[in-house]
């Protein structure tokens, strides 16, 4: 990531002088309030050489919401095996993430943030009826050619044990000054490679952003309608990246173990709604890979890997 003009990764924990802000909630904070703050807050930006503040949002006890979970399974394709889908804790942590990103001390504006990468490690399967404790915080940042990328970390505890950990890498885009045209990469060869273990066509209906938004609480206008998305520079509305990731992992089904597993995903291109996609799973010595592409394979929407063990 150290390209020209970029700085190295600045970890919050490496700066003990950084004042820690800890917000503790007894119920999931309101996402709508976070949206209001996101719309109207004025942010100073990141001051060079100054690390991000350590903002921690904690929800020590979250009781299960089985109705929402049922809806989530229907939308993403996870089967009801009595355990939480491996991507569901990320949804549970969504309101904490929103609180951090719209906190008055958080230096970057929340509008226009782009989800770049997601890593999930599950140490043990989590029963769906378990009460959980959640904690999320800003871990650090890095300046890149495209802007500032920062990481949100999330721990999910069951009792005293951390059972699930997530790392969310987000890009805060700075206005592009580059005038030179970047050369387009050569399109991949048509068809799919050998070693494919699954290759499923997926139809994403026009209303998936709204349906997923209702269950996840992420009602960002870019996911809702074509009109609201155009206000933010998109030609049509797009589906949530975490929906795409969850749909792929649900499709991989028993090729993804439920304990001691790490899943990493790079989000490449948005999925406009409605869409037809193909989810392809491959297996090699290192584990299982997955990729979500357009039917002709020319556009890759996300790429991911499933590996055994914590990273």
């Amino acid at each position, binding site marked *: 990531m150290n390209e020209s003009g970029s700085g190295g990764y600045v970890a919050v924990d490496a700066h003990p002088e950084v004042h820690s802000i800890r917000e503790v909630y007894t119920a999931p904070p309101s996402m709508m309030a976070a949206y209001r703050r996101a719309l109207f807050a004025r942010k100073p930006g990141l001051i060079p050489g100054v690390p991000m503040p350590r903002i921690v949002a904690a929800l020590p006890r979250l009781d299960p919401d089985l109705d929402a979970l049922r809806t989530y399974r229907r939308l993403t394709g996870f089967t009801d095996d009595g355990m939480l889908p491996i991507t569901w804790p990320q949804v549970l942590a969504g309101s904490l993430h929103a609180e951090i990103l719209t906190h008055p001390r958080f230096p970057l504006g929340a509008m226009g943030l782009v989800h770049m990468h997601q890593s999930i490690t599950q140490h043990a399967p989590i029963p769906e009826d378990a009460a959980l404790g959640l904690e999320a915080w800003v871990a650090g940042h890095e300046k890149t050619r495209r802007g500032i990328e920062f990481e949100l970390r999330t721990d999910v505890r069951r009792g005293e044990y951390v059972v699930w950990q997530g790392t969310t890498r987000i890009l805060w885009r700075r206005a592009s000054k580059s005038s030179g045209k970047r050369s387009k990469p050569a399109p991949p060869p*048509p068809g799919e490679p050998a070693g494919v273990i699954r290759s499923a066509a997926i139809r994403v209906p026009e209303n998936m952003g709204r349906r997923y938004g209702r269950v996840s609480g992420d009602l960002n206008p870019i996911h809702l309608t074509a009109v609201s998305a155009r206000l933010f520079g998109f030609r049509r509305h797009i589906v949530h990246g975490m929906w795409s990731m969850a749909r792929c992992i649900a499709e991989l089904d028993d090729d993804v173990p439920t304990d001691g597993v790490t899943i990493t995903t790079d989000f490449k291109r948005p999925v406009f709604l409605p869409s037809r996609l*193909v989810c392809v799973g491959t297996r090699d010595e290192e584990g299982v890979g997955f990729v979500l592409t357009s039917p002709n394979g020319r556009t890759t929407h996300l790429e991911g890997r499933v590996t055994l063990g914590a990273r």
Partner: protein
Amino acid sequence: MNASRRPSAQKPVEVVRIPPPPAEQRAQRNAVFAGESERRTRYSMPVALDSHSPVGYRHRIRLSEAEARAATALLSIERPHRFIDGPAIEEQELFDECSLGVLSSRQSTNYMGHRQVSLGPEDSMLVADRLKRMSGVEADVLGNAASTHVVLSKPYRTPFTMLLTFIGHKPWKSLGTVPARAWDKKVNHADDIPTIGYLQQLHIGILADAMERAAVIASSGARKANVLQAPFVGAAAEANAEHIRAIEDLVGLSAADRRKGWRIAFVGQTGYVGEHEQIQLSPESWRRIGANLLAFRSERIQPGVNAEAKAPPQYQQRQDMDVPDELTVMAGRAAYNAFVHWTGVDRERSKDLLLLERVDVLTPNGRERLRQIREHLGEVTERVITGIPLWADLPTGRALTRNAARGKKAFALAGQRIYIGGLDRGEIEREGIDWSLGVRAFGAAAARSALVAELMGVVDLPEDCDLLAGICLMAGPVNQNDIGKAFYGMKDMLCDAFPDRDPTSLLVWTLKAKTVADPIGNEEQLLNAKRKGALVDLRPGPHDVVAVKQGDAIAPMRHREGRRNAERAFADVGNFVTDPDGRGIPGNRGSSWPEAWRHERVW
């Protein structure tokens, strides 16, 4: 049919090895993905497949002679004698069984005319009880069934039959007679020409035959099917109306369904059989046979004979191959097996009842006979085109006449063995066989003989060949002939060959020895230009045509919690089409149904 009659023994079908041509004459389809600026055609690899069907786009796989021998046992399956106790059926096995049966049984392009409701052991007992009280049942009704499939069928209706509504009218009277016929078709399910009605029965017979094999293959030989058709046709159906109604209620056939013409076509009991009744084969071989059955499809093109000018070179090169006589003998044996099995007539008698005329160029005067048939069919087409009412044709931009002319493609009589087959209705009925049942048996006979050619076409298949023999079963020429009979006073195509009979031709077989498989664009899968070359699969997914009754609930198969099937049956065999570099069609391989659901006991 005489209820006391029992099917006579079927003769075993023997393996016939088809010698491949010399290496320099072998060719394969070897389809490649079209380049970015190239136009995609039916000869190029499609860019993607989006389908709920379990079939996918497959290539044939080589069977060893031993495997082929076991597979031929599937061409003379006898009914089970009794069902024994066995484990509850898992969802995966039921899916595999339906995939080889109702989900892939030979059907015309866009005729989705079959539905199936599968019942568990308890409901099977209720159905068995009803069947035992029915008259005209052709075989013993067995107890202890592990499952029962109730198959529903509706009249044959496709865009072709819509076109038929406009054919055969007088110029001025057509303003009244066309709407009258359309009404009669919609409300009374009347057919424009008799062979359209026969198509429904042919397809039922083909499915009944496939269902017997499906139960055996899906269960690796442990289960068999006992398919009962006779009580649901003709006079027997009238006599059994009360019991049929009870079964219809059990499977949730609604009044609206009945208005659309849906009726019970047959019932298939399945259950575990003792070892002495089983066909023994390794589980891997069963899987390979199952995967192969899903790869077989009609072969219309004879390289070097009827390939389009724009087809790639491998289709243009005439191949020095011939269909061995032993193969046609075995194909005939399988056909008679099926006819005997489904009608119960004596084997030798079946040879009189099945009317077959060989019309290929290898027969004396064959070339002349083929020319006569083509001229006859061409004349019918011309009369159809000139007779279509202008008031209907002009507003549609002459779409009706264009489609009628396009129908000529369906009459491609190319192959080294070509047979026209049919039955004499009077003779069939004098034999005590219900005519519908006779037509069904004819369909089963045709399909089973086709399977012989297809199976033998992969025995010791060299790696540089797609197949060694293929077959195409066509109703197009027969339908066209029937239009001539119904509206223009012409005679049946079989009349000259059987002057002392009153034949009704039903199907045409074209058998081919070749090594290049037909491109996509056959009757089952089409390239959709609007979707930029994606493959459109017209075959149904399980949720479209199969329902499973559990308790009082009847639910579509593999439509659960927002998911629908994306699995290809027998995918573990991996016979999915790739380009010469091994790159596959996105979406073609499919994705298996969730593990937890696949291994659930259905009942």
